[in-house]
């Protein structure tokens, strides 16, 4: 079983919330679910949509084709009509020549609820159309809204009864197994970092990273995380460096434009050897671009960000589960190597909720190298073979950190010999990171064969589904700095393609640079993520 339905209306119609409630109906029935959201940068009006795909197999991306559109406004119908078989619409608001006419607005008036509630009637009708027990929907409302769920439940019942009388059932969806967890990439990354000991999260709001801020702020006491929205991104990054200097594990969240503002601080973290994890969720640029749309345009930017040279660890998760593990891994690695790390997310991964099986116990807070000597003899930047100096914090020691070049004690220097040795000490950490990544999963492979589809980030989902259909191998490059040349070079490749959401093929250029691999580009830069359905013909062009 694999089907999709869509809910669409204007901003303010509760489209996202309705989509998530509807998705949870099926995740609780044991199905795999993927929710893709489309929205615009406005508060009221415009066009919002939630596409919910339900399947008995693991789903890695959304699908354009669907059973049904639930239309809350008339003007959204033409946008979706060609992709769905039928339309369920609010007949109190407008009329169509076809489809299921459900007087949602009138039901809302009957129960004295504002119009935004009318999608609950639609979800009641949806339960009938898919043969789902109404009680399951009421339970989801109760879990989400507690005592305030009363009107949603009443409306759902009115919608359900009306649909029972007037509409033909589309399909029977029976329970497929135990309830599955449903969460998006931002939530997953946040929890992975928490599992690795996150103590502080600082972020200035910026789509598509903002929901990390909301998610952690709402659960800050339960999770033991200090959550602050400071005056701007520069403050967020510098505060983070201050907190890590004082001994707290910290993450900063932003998108490309915000990360651009953090460049000087990013470089400071490299020079002062302060572990900070940056979560950068890409959106469509350049500049303000299309703020609510997807892109993978910042890979080169992040790899080269910050002035000067210093070790950095950059990794990009391919799905919601991967986001959890990588966030935890990167926070640990940042502390082990005392250098900044970037979790490079993207809009599609950040904001698409999917069913996920996460083994939280796979991530733990791994202790960094700590100083055990006499407090009076502490040298923050002790030169070692590994380049890693033992850590200690005030008030236990006098700790001198600086963005200036410095000696072992942290005093400013411009001595040629001292500065040269200190520069080399910092850069030597890169070797340790490479050795460490050789033990970890630097790439993920799916399928077999010598026709290889390279990809990264959330494009992995559509690439894997399309490649399964065509019998191709997919390689998701998880770690992007240091680049896992050792993994890529051992692949046996006949023909290669590279799937990514940008214009120039940034991963493809890294494959050429590090491993002399020429991959055919399959890119897009229209703010839309790939679907498997779109990728199949494009991959066929490459691989014949």
């Amino acid at each position, binding site marked *: 079983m694999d089907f999709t339905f869509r809910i669409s209306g204007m901003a303010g119609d509760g489209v996202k919330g309705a989509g998530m409630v509807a998705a949870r109906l099926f995740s609780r029935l044991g199905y795999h679910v993927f929710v893709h959201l489309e929205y615009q940068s406005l508060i009221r009006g415009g066009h919002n949509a939630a596409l919910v795909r339900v399947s008995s197999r693991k789903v890695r991306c959304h699908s354009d084709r669907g059973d049904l559109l639930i239309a809350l406004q008339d003007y959204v119908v033409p946008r979706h009509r060609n992709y769905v078989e039928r339309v369920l619409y609010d007949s109190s608001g407008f009329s169509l020549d076809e489809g299921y006419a459900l007087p949602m607005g009138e039901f809302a008036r009957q129960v004295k609820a504002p119009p935004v509630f009318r999608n609950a009637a639609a979800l009641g009708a949806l339960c009938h159309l898919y043969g789902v027990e109404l009680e399951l929907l009421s339970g989801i409302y109760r879990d989400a809204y507690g005592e305030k769920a009363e009107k949603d439940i009443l409306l759902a019942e009115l919608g359900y009864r009306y649909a029972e009388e007037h509409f033909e059932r589309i399909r029977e969806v029976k329970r497929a197994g135990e309830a599955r967890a449903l969460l998006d990439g931002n939530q997953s990354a946040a929890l992975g970092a928490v599992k690795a000991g996150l103590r502080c999260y600082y972020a200035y709001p910026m789509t598509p990273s903002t929901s990390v801020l909301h998610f952690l702020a709402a659960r*800050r006491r339960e999770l033991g995380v200090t959550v602050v929205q400071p005056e701007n991104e520069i403050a967020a990054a510098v505060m983070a460096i201050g907190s890590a200097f004082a001994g707290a594990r910290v993450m900063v969240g932003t998108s490309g434009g915000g990360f651009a503002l953090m460049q000087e601080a990013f470089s400071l973290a490299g020079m002062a050897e302060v572990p900070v994890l940056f979560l950068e969720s890409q959106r469509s640029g350049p500049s303000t671009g299309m703020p609510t749309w997807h892109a993978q345009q910042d890979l080169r930017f992040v790899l080269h960000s910050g002035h000067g040279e210093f070790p950095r660890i950059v990794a990009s998760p391919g799905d919601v589960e991967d986001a959890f593990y990588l966030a935890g891994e990167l926070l640990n690695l940042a502390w082990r190597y005392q250098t900044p790390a970037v979790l490079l997310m993207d809009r599609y991964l950040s904001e698409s909720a999917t069913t996920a099986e996460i083994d939280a116990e796979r991530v733990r807070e791994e202790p960094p190298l700590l100083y055990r000597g006499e407090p009076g003899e502490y040298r923050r930047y002790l030169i070692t073979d590994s380049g890693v100096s033992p850590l200690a914090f005030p008030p236990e020691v006098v700790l001198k950190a600086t963005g200036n070049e410095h000696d072992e004690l942290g005093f400013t220097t411009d001595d040629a010999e001292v500065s040269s040795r200190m520069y080399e000490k910092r850069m030597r950490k890169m070797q340790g990171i490479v050795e460490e990544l050789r033990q970890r999963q630097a790439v993920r492979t799916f399928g077999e064969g010598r026709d290889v589809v390279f990809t990264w980030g959330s494009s992995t989902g559509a690439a894997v589904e399309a490649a399964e259909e065509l019998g191709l191998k997919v390689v998701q490059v998880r770690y992007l700095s240091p680049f896992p040349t050792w993994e890529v070079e051992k692949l046996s490749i006949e023909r290669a393609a590279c799937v990514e959401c940008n214009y120039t093929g940034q991963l493809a250029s890294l494959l050429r640079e590090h491993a002399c691999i020429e991959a055919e580009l399959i890119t897009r830069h229209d703010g839309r993520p790939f679907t498997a359905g779109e990728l199949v013909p494009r991959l066929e062009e490459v691989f014949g």
Partner: protein
Amino acid sequence: MKLATQAKIVWCPGCGNFGILKAFKDAVGELEVDLRRLVLVSGVGCHGKIADYLALSSFHTIHGRVPAMLAGIKLANPELIAVGFAGDGDAYNEGLVHLIHAAKKNIDATLIVHDNAVYGLTTGQATATSARGFRGRSTPEGNPEEPLNPVALMLASGASFVARGYAGDASHLKEIIKEAILHRGFAFVDVLQPCVTFNNTWKLYREKVHKIKDTPESIDEAMRLARAEDEIPVGILYREERSTYEEEMRIEPRDADVSALLERMR
């Protein structure tokens, strides 16, 4: 614990920074605090070198961002005593937004601004506090801007402790710094400091600086003193008690049960 370090002091002879360094050393010497709890942050400029001259924990950070780093340190460990040093170009030009928000938030930290009304380390350009008509190397025909009044700005921004000191009177400045460090909340000290090389204001300050006896009771009176022009009042111009940002925002770390939270997301 001795405060001097191995670092050779490289400020110009006669620089106002010496007065600030002496006042600070004397202040922490007299305040019976655990010096290991003191954490200094300095910005970029001549003043920033002060981190090298004090045998205390310190972070010599990037230009303009001292208040943000103080906030990060205090949110991570409120037991630390955070003292920032910034220059006027640092605090009033490059990073003004952080200064205003640190005051507004009431971060429990002290900020001492070495206000010499000129960029010294970059050899003499006008800053936000340079006088109108100041001839710097980037304003050869004179600075066309009116100077910012940082003390008035901090009063308007909600700083809970606002003082103006003078680098030429280290013992008076020491008393201000002691009170600033003891203050619970954001303590702002603008220190009038001549730059002997690029903006030598010793004569002006000797004539005009005037010590106030008591801290005014009202913010209106503080504002009147802040804006006085005939003479330059120095001393603690304003103080009030209110909750600090860390008290409001800091969450005590705990071992979170992430598995249980994931279970609830089913």
